[in-house]
């Protein structure tokens, strides 16, 4: 059913994990007397020194507002800011920097599309199609716009493995579907959605597709043109960059036709009380002073990731996933939640007799950071009939030794509640 996985290439040269770890100052931290084992990367990844220093250097030497002054600093700040837009363009292979809009994060990117693309187009009875896998940030913006317009939200179901049922998805694509919005990678289960197949089906009916790429971009190579995505949303902080910075990629023809979302400085060409002329793309969607330092740090994060090589990152993380899956599956009473055929490096699970929050506290006492709860995906929890799961999400800087510590910690929790 699923589209074939990206061709497996000759195994990329593994990198020296200790050297990579040394790039991340926080990984040396002691938590409750133990070296931090940070296994909560899907919530937010950590930053390499290069990102921290790029932000600091920007503030120390370059800061001024962008797109405004004729003075040197403003020009330098603008150049640095716009240079990152070009780096992002290259990173996701967008056709033009006009298609790269800086936002506060994935959530804001999706809300922008909901309010600026969907809202003016939706009529009562129109439909937006999402899936059961979605993060709340790819559910609630659509619920809001449905309430505003009388449109309906349709939800494609998933199967036991945590894969979207393509046959059901196709059935739900109707003459009234105006937009499809899907996770590229599920944040709660790790499912890598074979989005090419879903996009092709939607496009065959003339329906544009937004992808929530927050969990994909840090872990697998993403090419928005190869995917043929119409909108692609992601966040810097999940890809080793600063918080408060995100991107909305949009096909230029669609963005061109959309009205601005927020009004303010930077998004206008001229303002008169009778009539304001809006700025060109991408600035039309960037009202107000942006997170300039954050964007500069984001540029350093992209450089860092590209330096490692996304293919190598993906291969390394896949190996960690296989190790973690085997290690955890061997623990009695542990049930894996989400067993998709293609997964990113994330293991969601429940442990018989031990609530995830108690497990989280017990692991924290041993310096191990995991996420426990509903992962902002309550419908997914409902599907599996659990109120919450524990989730270990891995990054290339994690090690087998950390996974061993996780497994030992889970055993310890079983003893505490045994």
């Amino acid at each position, binding site marked *: 059913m699923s589209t074939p996985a990206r061709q497996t290439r000759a195994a990329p040269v593994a990198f020296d994990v200790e050297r990579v770890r040394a790039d991340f100052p926080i990984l040396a931290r002691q938590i409750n007397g133990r070296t931090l084992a940070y296994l909560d990367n899907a919530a937010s990844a950590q930053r390499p020194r290069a990102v921290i220093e790029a932000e600091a250097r920007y503030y120390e030497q370059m800061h001024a507002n962008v797109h405004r002054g004729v003075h040197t600093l403003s020009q330098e700040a603008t150049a640095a800011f716009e240079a990152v837009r070009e780096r992002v363009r290259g990173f996701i292979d967008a056709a033009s920097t006009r298609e790269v809009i800086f936002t506060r994060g994935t959530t804001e990117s999706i809300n922008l599309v909901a309010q600026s693309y969907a809202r003016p187009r939706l009529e009562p009875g129109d439909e937006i199609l999402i899936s059961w896998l979605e993060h709340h940030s790819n559910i609630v913006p659509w619920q809001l716009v449905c309430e505003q317009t009388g449109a309906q939200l349709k939800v494609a179901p998933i199967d036991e493995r945590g894969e979207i049922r393509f046959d059901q998805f196709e059935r739900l694509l109707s003459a009234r579907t105006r937009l499809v919005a899907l996770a590229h990678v599920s944040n709660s289960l790790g499912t890598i959605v074979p989005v090419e197949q879903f996009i092709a089906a939607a496009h065959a009916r003339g329906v544009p597709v937004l992808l929530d790429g927050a969990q994909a971009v840090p872990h697998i190579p993403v090419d928005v043109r190869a995917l043929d995505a119409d909108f692609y949303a992601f966040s810097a902080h999940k890809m080793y960059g600063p918080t408060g910075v995100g991107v909305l990629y949009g096909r230029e023809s669609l963005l061109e036709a959309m009205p601005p979302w927020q009004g303010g400085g930077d998004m206008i060409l001229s303002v008169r009380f009778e009539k304001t002329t809006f700025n060109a793309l991408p600035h039309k969607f960037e009202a107000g002073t942006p997170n300039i330092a954050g964007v500069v740090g984001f540029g350093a994060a992209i450089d860092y990731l590209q330096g490692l090589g996304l293919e190598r990152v993906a291969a390394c993380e896949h190996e960690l996933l296989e190790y973690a899956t085997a290690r955890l599956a061997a623990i009695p009473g542990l049930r894996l939640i989400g067993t998709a055929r293609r997964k990113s490096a994330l293991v969601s699970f429940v442990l018989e007799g031990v*609530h*995830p*929050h108690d497990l989280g506290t017990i692991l924290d006492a041993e310096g191990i950071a995991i996420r426990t*709860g509903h992962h902002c995906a*309550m419908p997914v929890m409902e599907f599996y009939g659990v*109120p919450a799961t524990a989730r270990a999400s891995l990054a290339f800087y994690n090690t087998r030794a950390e996974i061993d510590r996780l497994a030992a910690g889970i055993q310890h929790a079983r003893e505490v509640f045994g």
Partner: protein
Amino acid sequence: MDLKDLYRDVIIDHNRSPRNFGRLEPADAHAEGVNPLCGDRLDVYVALEGERLRDVRFEGKGCAISVAAASLMTEALKGRTRADAQRYFEEVHSLLTLPGFAPSFDLGKLAALSGVREFPARVKCASLCWHTLNAALAHQRQPVSTE
């Protein structure tokens, strides 16, 4: 921070075999409590006899701290007055949040909850049942929700 201080034997015991667990029908007071961030959810039921809480029961799903705290609460309050319940609420609240707090009266097994204050992220787990009880008693004259 010592795990043994959080997961004391009495907490483990009340989590494993919660007392007064289950629905109370009919109930004179009932409320549903939810910790939206973690998904813990419980219902507290009270049967009243004048000012007295003749029976207090609870039902729900949550972590060991939230289940044990609710179980301990029902045990402590059964047969006590509304005024007692208020005193216990305030005392337990202080116990959960104020460093070095010494209870002004003997809290019995509830004292086992003092370890929670070393784990700020877990205070809301232990206080959920108490807030739910307060809500139940405040709205007792309204029809009991049938959820």
